[in-house]
């Protein structure tokens, strides 16, 4: 296994761990963090595998994609955090309301 693939598999690990937390944790802050960890995992897969170029610099295209992805992740996280604060303000609970209770 090359170093590039080792890093990429680590990225998959982060993705899986994040997905686990997203599903089983109820606290919304944990869910938002979980999505960020999943995102980091995907970014790691993208950049690590760019290092497979035979000799010469790594492929710059995935690097550019990851920069784009990071900005998107920052934007989404900011929106999620403010939404979380509003949910807490209106319901007093940092968790998703039960959809059937309405």
């Amino acid at each position, binding site marked *: 296994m090359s170093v590039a693939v080792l890093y990429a598999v680590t990225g*998959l690990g982060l993705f899986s761990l994040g997905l686990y937390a997203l599903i*089983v944790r109820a606290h919304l802050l944990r869910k938002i963090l979980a999505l960020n960890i999943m995102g980091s995992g995907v970014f790691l*897969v993208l950049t690590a595998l*760019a290092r497979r170029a035979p000799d010469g*610099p790594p492929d710059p*295209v*995935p690097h550019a994609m990851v920069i784009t992805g990071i*900005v998107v992740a920052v934007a989404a996280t*900011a929106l999620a955090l403010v939404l979380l604060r509003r949910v807490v303000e209106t319901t007093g609970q940092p968790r998703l309301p039960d959809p059937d209770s309405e």
Partner: protein
Amino acid sequence: MTPRGAAPWLRFSVALLLVGMFAALAWVLLGLPPRSAGLQPQVAAQMAVSGVDHPVTAVLLNFRGYDTLLEMAVLLLACLGVWSLSPAVPPTDETPGAMLAALPRQLVPLMVLMAGYLLWRGATGPGGAFQAGAVLGAAGVLLLLTGWRLPVRWQGWRLRLLLIAGVGMFVLVALAVVPASGVLLGYPLPVAGTLILLIEALAGLSIGVTLMALFLGGEPGASR
């Protein structure tokens, strides 16, 4: 009551499922060809006509510049969403201690200088609008944390103009080059480097201001 989360049996089955997913995907990655240059040769071949000397910047601002334009729009829309959700968190009246008051006076000018350097550096090495914007945003957050408040006259259309400056300039350039090159975002080569620097400068500024505005957690000066 604090949220507890899923029942043990559910956790166990989710964990089992995800271990399976991880193993399957890891096996898939191991099966990829160990050597692959991706698009690196194509990028290298066109570097001379990209207007910059750093491949990542060339991809971000030129070859895939359209993605970057939309991504700036994502950041702006997130800020609009935050503003629509709530007014800014009211600042506390606490006066910062002597250390905390002195800190930004030393650091912020350095950070602004750093942002300018990163922006300039992007043409030839790692750096560019996003890195510069991140440092600028951090400077703004530092100021806010140490008791600085956005002056009222900067809360209205001036702030909104700063927020859209990056996307606005990108859109302007994207459309303005159409008569010259016949295609959206097709920078004519002699001015490609200058146009990219112009876009990056305003993009860096807007990103910095947007990050700071996001940190406010809502629209400054708005009431509910």
